[in-house]
């Protein structure tokens, strides 16, 4: 996490009337996410050329599906990072939420919607706890959420083992309310012969909502300000603590949503799942132009970052490469995208 290379910590140089205006192109390139878009296009073209199946619409639909399962979490993580904090517990929090809904409904033989609501409350509570500890103790969120990450991981494994004597939650597809919940969280439909899974739609909707919140609402203004300079924000009356806790709870909300999709897609949940995904979320947000130091970034950029991950994830399969090389290529391509992103932004900031 010590990759500070892509963060232009030094503010842009002072300007006065002797400095000319930046060109429109340079201004566009200076926007967060433009570098990610360029990277996404390069990666798309790359796989389009080398992997024949990648060219079909149905394949791209599954690329989008994989993207959306990560992208649902990338949006709130991007907002949280713009607000100046990290959440390393986000990956396992998805699994915790799904396990909670599943085990509660199964053990008490309730309607699954009861479990779904209990899981929502728990996810929001975990988000609140993360935020509250960060705000009250002023310990870096990296450390606080590293702690909750390991706690949740342990709870997922231990409680599932204790309750079910297995490493996975039991199949809940026979429970009351399952089919309606599945319709909401994990259905699919067909457009022009292409199968579209519902998380893709949710993902796009949530990205648009996150963008709207960031750029068009007071809340968005406050998110940028608490990440950009918490002291300044506090001095002008922005409720910094409430904003940060709220952002952690937004991550909790989307962890719940993603967890519900996973649960109703597969009917059962592996208790060890989700570890490592927190880094995917953070990397996608950074590739998408969010600064590690906070105060800068965009939800659309982060969504493009998630798309890069999705394309690489599926592209390697379509290219017929040995899956053992998967994480290596993911790392390489993400590093390349970050470098490109940084290069373009530096050029844009330096050029006239």
């Amino acid at each position: 996490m010590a990759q500070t290379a892509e963060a232009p910590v030094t503010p842009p140089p002072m300007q006065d009337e002797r400095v000319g205006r930046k060109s429109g192109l340079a201004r566009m390139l200076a926007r967060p996410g433009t570098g990610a878009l360029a990277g996404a296009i390069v990666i798309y073209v790359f796989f389009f050329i080398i992997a024949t199946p990648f060219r079909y619409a149905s394949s791209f639909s599954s690329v989008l599906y994989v993207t959306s399962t990560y992208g649902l979490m990338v949006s709130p993580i991007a907002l949280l990072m713009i607000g100046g904090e990290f959440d390393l517990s986000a990956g396992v929090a998805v699994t915790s939420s799904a396990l909670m809904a599943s085990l509660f409904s199964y053990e008490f033989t309730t309607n699954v919607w009861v479990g779904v609501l209990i899981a929502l409350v728990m996810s929001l509570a975990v988000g609140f706890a993360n935020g509250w500890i960060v705000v009250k103790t002023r310990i870096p969120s990296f450390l606080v959420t590293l702690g909750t990450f390991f706690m949740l991981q342990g709870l997922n494994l231990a409680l599932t083992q204790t309750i079910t004597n297995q490493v996975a939650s039991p199949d809940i597809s026979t429970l009351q309310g399952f089919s309606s919940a599945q319709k909401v969280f994990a259905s699919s439909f067909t457009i022009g012969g292409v199968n579209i899974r519902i998380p893709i739609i949710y993902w796009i909707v949530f990205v648009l909502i996150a963008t709207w919140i960031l750029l068009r609402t007071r809340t968005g203004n406050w998110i940028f300000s608490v990440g950009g300079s918490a002291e300044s924000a506090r001095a002008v009356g922005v409720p910094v603590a409430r904003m940060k806790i709220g952002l952690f709870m937004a991550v909790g909300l989307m962890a719940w949503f993603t967890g519900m999709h996973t649960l109703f897609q597969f009917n059962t949940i592996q208790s060890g799942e989700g570890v490592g995904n927190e880094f995917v979320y953070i990397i996608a947000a950074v590739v998408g132009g969010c600064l590690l130091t906070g105060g800068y970034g965009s939800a659309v950029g982060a969504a493009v970052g998630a798309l890069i991950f999705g394309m690489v994830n599926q592209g390697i399969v379509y290219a017929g490469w040995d899956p053992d090389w998967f994480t290596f290529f993911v790392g390489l391509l993400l590093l390349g995208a970050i470098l490109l992103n940084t290069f373009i932004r530096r050029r844009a900031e330096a050029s006239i």
Partner: protein
Amino acid sequence: MTSTAESTQDTQNAQPLIRLSHAGKRYGTIIALSDITMEVGAGEVTCVLGDNGAGKSTLIKIIAGLHQPSSGTYEVEGTEVHFSSPREALERGIATVYQDLAVVPLMPVWRNFFLGNEARKGIRLDIPFMKKTCKEELAAMGIDLRDVDQPIGTLSGGERQCVAISRAVYFGAKVLILDEPTAALGVKQSGVVLKYVIQARERGLGVIFITHNPHHAYPVGDRFLLLNRGRGIGYFEKDQITRDELTGLMAGGSELEQLSHELQGVSGAAGIAEELVEDVAELGLSKEGRHSQ
């Protein structure tokens, strides 16, 4: 300057906007500030002068609502207050423009201008209104920005101060606390900031101007509070003190004499030492008669 004379007349009848009486602040066993009495009325500038560590920051924090005084009283418009947050002070019209904390550098100028006081239509930000108002208010203060969408970090230090000042004025501040607004600025930019201090006064605001530069304080100030090591070492109306006396008190006459003695011992520095001695004599530094009240 007739308007200033009038407003001074008015405030003699009315309550001062802010009055501290024998206020002090302790942090554990550290006495950061003790027995400070000062006030500022509408259309007046009270300058707080002191070197580093004199207690200026502590004084601001008390007035701005970040800290409560541990002794003495703090009155706003005649009623005693106990602020528990800067927000409460803001609601009473006490706005603070901090030296470094005034703005969020990566955010556009207009977002900074309205931060914490966003104009909204329903739950949406009223962006066209905010951009237009920001541009107009800054133009009224004499800052013509090409683009209020540029990050405020790209403005010069003086321009940023002015944005922060015009922001406070626009949002109806009655009292403006300016924390070393000219400290990091060049001569010309300092002049620009001082112009806004006077403009704020003309608009009927009370201004508390914190600085360590008597040359900046004297032209704009109506009252001067001098701090040294957490104590008030003088509180003057403008007609009670000259610029040179103020400079002398700030420089600490006895310390200058001491310095000149030390320098005389160093070969080659004798000339400098002589100049210092002359300066001290010229400033008429003496300890009696400097403490009013």
